[in-house]
């Protein structure tokens, strides 16, 4: 372990503070999914990924990460900054004029750490498969990680990619689904049920593992388990249960905080629940 679980939890707490402060500052953005995935993205960058903050687009010899549900950019921007990809002061520019921290992630402004634009949903898995195929052609043994929303799986392109990856033995790919059961218009069960994602992915030929995305120890263990399953002929799906808004009591478990910014009082309440472990930006 590069960090103890406690250290990772502390970083995640700071990341959550960053998220609510960023979204509050511009009064827009998506706090719910960002908070729910803070443990995962923190564990990935601080513990699991073999990566360099001296950013190179081709990522040769490095593990790569693609965020398919680009609207949870606040969590990614915070973790990238906290990892050292760019100065944490830049987090204050989120969604503001001339920022590199666009509402949805993009390569267009050359923010270190980002390799493809995302936001229009359902495209990240295909891109990650392409990057994984390039690694195989380059005899590069490192891995490709992705994160997807569960509601995002309603986009048809995902299922083209889900069908492709096992057939072509893309076994250097570890996809994680943020299984929080919420989307903008309500619970996924009411908007368009995903039914059993495990059964669906297994039927397509994936190796599926389940994890608790808001328990740091479980997050780290699941990612290490996923890594141990790589290179065995099948892509890996990490079906990660989370709670939207985790860490801020009034946001937990509600789709209402998918894309709503807290007001001043709500920000104060949220920050009161999230320990500042590193300094605020």
């Amino acid at each position, binding site marked *: 372990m590069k960090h103890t679980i406690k250290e990772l939890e502390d970083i995640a707490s700071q990341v959550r503070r960053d998220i609510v402060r960023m979204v509050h500052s511009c009064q827009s953005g998506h706090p719910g999914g960002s908070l729910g995935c803070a443990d995962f993205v923190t564990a990935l960058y601080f513990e699991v990924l073999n990566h360099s903050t001296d950013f190179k687009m081709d990522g040769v010899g490095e593990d790569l990460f693609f965020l398919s549900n680009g609207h949870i950019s606040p969590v990614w921007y915070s973790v990238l900054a906290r990892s050292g990809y760019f100065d944490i002061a830049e987090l204050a520019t989120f969604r503001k004029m001339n920022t590199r921290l666009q509402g949805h992630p993009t390569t267009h402004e050359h923010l270190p750490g980002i390799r493809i634009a*995302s936001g229009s949903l359902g495209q990240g898995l295909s891109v990650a*498969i392409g*990057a994984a195929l390039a690694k195989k*052609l380059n005899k590069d043994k490192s891995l490709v990680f992705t994160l997807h929303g569960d509601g995002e799986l309603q986009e048809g*392109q995902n299922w083209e990619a889900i069908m492709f990856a096992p057939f*072509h033995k893309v076994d250097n790919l570890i996809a994680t689904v943020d299984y929080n059961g919420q989307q903008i218009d309500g619970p996924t069960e009411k908007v368009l049920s995903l039914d059993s994602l495990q059964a669906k992915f297994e039927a397509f030929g994936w190796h599926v593992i389940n994890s608790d995305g808001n328990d740091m120890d479980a997050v780290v263990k699941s990612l290490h388990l996923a890594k141990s399953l790589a290179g065995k002929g099948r892509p890996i799906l990490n079906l990660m249960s989370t709670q939207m808004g985790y860490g801020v009591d009034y946001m937990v478990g509600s789709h209402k905080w998918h894309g709503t910014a807290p007001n001043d009082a709500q920000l104060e309440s949220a920050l009161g629940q999230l320990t500042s472990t590193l300094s605020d930006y």
Partner: protein
Amino acid sequence: MKKYTYTEKKDTRSGFGAGLHEAGKRNKNVVALCADLKGSLKMDDFANEFPDRFVQVGIAEANMIGIAAGLTIGGKIPFTGTFANFSTGRVYDQIRQSVAYSNKNVKICASHAGLTLGEDGATHQILEDIGLMKMLPGMVVINPCDYNQTKAATLAILDYEGPVYLRFGRPSVPIFTPADQKFEIGKAWMVNEGKDVTIIATGHMVWRAIEAGEKLAEMGIDAEIINIHTIKPLDEAAILASVQKTGCVVTAEEHNKFGGLGESVARLLTTEFPAPQEFVAVNDSFGESATPDELMTKYGLDPINIVEAVQKVLKRKK
């Protein structure tokens, strides 16, 4: 009128297939992808010689575009191949976000463009693809005119860093450009120098413009014919120089008159050198089933239509 002859007819898609095969030999980073149309896109030679660099995606064009974008991240140069309709309209958002906005070095290679696909009918005959692609910031749009030019264009885009849309077709058409030509992206080709009218043509319409030019010469009209193979970036200097000399222009393309080459030329002339213009293009319509030649006649894309457009535009010339 400069004399153009040909000894052989071939489909432009075969020029792409030959160019792709050569590109694969020249650069080991070239990867070809297709969506269940390997034979139609003439990708067999590449696939047979470089099986490790050929990806059969199946009938899943959106996934193909995304995979291509991802391949570029590892330094690969992906060439995607399917019909023009499935290369553009079907995957517009994937191209927009994962390729164009992300500035990925993907070569979107599209066959069976326009009416000359023939009998399959309107579902497969896209006449809007040039417009769709040229509207994307940073996208290069190329529509070559014969086998040799398509092969040369395929090799030229290999050496260009950035997203490209390469449009070609199914029917056999005369080979009248040199096999050893140097294809320069964004550089117009002067087919025939003249003084009375400028005819600007792209793709399959270039040979038809030459046939029209011969008829016009018999009528005593000296037409300048320019081949714009690269619709974006447009060779503005070449077009302006010509129209400043002739004073009027006819554009010819196998595409909807809305959004095509003609509108690009009109935009340029309106701002730089207003001049009378006529459009030989499909008049805001879908296609239908018939032979390619029957369709080109019905939809007004024959040499005679170019001749008539010239006569019309000359009357408006001051």
